[in-house]
């Protein structure tokens, strides 16, 4: 039985990674799960300089999900290499580093520095964070800007590039195509959905940032649709994500057109989820006599 998949040059031993921002820098979950069982470890977003992040409260629980507005707190490239890379580089599974910047040049510079580091599995371009004023989503919702960011990073590195798409667009197809045409090796679909919640006792927003990004099972059906639409628009592989809690959810993403999947918010409440998803995909394949996981990708049956 084959569970391995290719994301550009990146080979994953199985199609399951974790969503950036839900898994820290890997080491935090090492006491609870065997990271070497994953397809890849995807770390939280890094820009050139350290980022302090937003004031608190930064997250709020909502029905079947949560809101977050962390503000991409992070150690910067140098801090990441010093504090977290020594652990990650020893793993037997590849690391996908999520990167961002406030300018096209900064994205490219971060890509160049991680290219020079050596041993990185792939770079995920975060052009879709809803919680920062500059950078992030502005690049992910405009075809021209998106193409510029992807092209600049393409010039800066030979590492596989995964463009993390914003869900906050009327039609994902032209943006998906723009990323592909500019040299992206894959797409990550999708990021969190802009959202908010109010405490009716205090009349205050539940997040200090007022608005945040909705994640968790609440967004899954919307994410499935985005993956399906993006898959029809491009030939490059898609990593599907949005509310995956179990193998059935993951298989749904694969059928919609994803080549791999990422477990996100579920890590916060059930750290075993990624391993349960891998085991469940294997069981499904045995039951359905599927010898290669790639046969599931895009296998949705649509009656005309």
């Amino acid at each position, binding site marked *: 039985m084959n569970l391995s998949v290719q994301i550009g040059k990146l080979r994953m031993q199985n199609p399951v990674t974790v969503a950036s921002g839900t898994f820290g820098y890997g080491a935090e979950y090492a006491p609870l799960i065997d990271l070497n069982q994953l397809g890849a470890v995807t770390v*939280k977003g890094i820009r050139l300089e350290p980022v302090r992040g937003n004031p608190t409260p930064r997250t709020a629980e909502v029905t079947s999900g949560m809101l977050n507005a962390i503000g991409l707190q992070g150690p910067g490239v140098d801090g990441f290499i010093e504090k977290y890379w020594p652990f990650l580089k020893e793993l037997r599974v590849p690391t996908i580093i999520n990167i961002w910047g406030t300018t096209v040049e900064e994205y490219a510079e971060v890509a160049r520095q991680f290219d020079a580091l050596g041993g990185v599995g792939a770079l995920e371009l975060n052009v879709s964070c809803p919680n920062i004023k500059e950078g992030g989503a502005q690049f992910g919702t405009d075809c021209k800007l998106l193409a510029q960011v992807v092209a600049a990073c393409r010039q800066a590195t030979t590492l596989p590039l995964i463009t993390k798409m914003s869900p906050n667009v009327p039609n994902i197809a032209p943006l998906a195509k723009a990323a592909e045409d500019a040299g992206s090796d894959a797409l990550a679909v999708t990021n969190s959905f802009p959202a908010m919640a109010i405490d009716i006792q205090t009349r205050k927003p539940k997040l200090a940032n007022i608005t945040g990004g909705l994640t968790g099972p609440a967004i899954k059906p919307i994410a499935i649709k985005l993956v399906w639409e993006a898959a029809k628009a491009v030939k490059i592989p898609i990593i599907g994500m949005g509310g995956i809690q179990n193998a059935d959810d993951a298989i749904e993403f694969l059928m919609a057109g994803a080549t791999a999947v990422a477990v996100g918010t579920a890590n916060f409440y059930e750290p075993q989820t990624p391993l349960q998803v891998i085991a469940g995909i294997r069981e499904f394949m045995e039951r359905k006599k599927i010898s290669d996981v790639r046969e599931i990708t895009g296998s949705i049956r649509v009656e005309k």
Partner: protein
Amino acid sequence: MVKTQMLEQTVQIVSNERDTDSYFRLVLRAPQIAPLIQPGQFAHVRVTPLKDALLRRPFSIFQVADGTFSILYKTVGKGTDALSRMRAGEKISVIGPLGRGFTVPKAGGETPLLVAGGYGMAAMYLLAQRSPQKGIVFVGGRKRVDILCEKEFAALGWDVRVTTEDGSHGEKGLVTQPFITELRRKMTRRKVFACGPTPMLKAVGKIAEDFNLPAELSMDEHMCCGVGTCLTCVIPVKAGDGWEYQRACTEGPVFDSRGVIWEVTK
């Protein structure tokens, strides 16, 4: 401040009884987790009957005994309401022990002065139990029912000084009043430990500083993952020439009061 190993386990409820008013005592059989627990650490609990409220709830650990540990909690929302309806024999998922707890005083070292607001007292029981130096615990609450483990501390041979805002038990007023009175006695070699609501912690930190005493504060901040990945529970802490956000779940929940920044200017 000690950091140890954590485990994720499905454990059985030994008992889950009402203490007073809206407070409950939950005892869990967790023979592997219990011996790892240090004073001031917490457990992250998945309240399984909650269907659409997904996140775990963090609870300070109260007592540890014979392969079990207990939690003293107040019903404040749907998570704790659902937890309070669970019965002995039912199972629950726990990650723990988590966080950096209190520094246990050494024999012949400083006299510990504990300041607790309401059920914050429970989070300091293990500290009192494992401290070779007996000390004083100052506990305050709004009314009598908010004073929870007075007997347990007295049984350890500690001096318990109670205050209630309505005067229904102990001295009438705020917990900081008898605390300041005690500090004015100009004893040497004392150290302050505190757990309670943030305004109380801020006041205690300020008082300790005025008396030039070291203080460890168990900070309360909204939490999500509990293990350091989500960056929800951050506290502004002095670092170098400036400050940075540190995680209550990982660098804390116990922080040195001199490092905590109470007012963050943008």
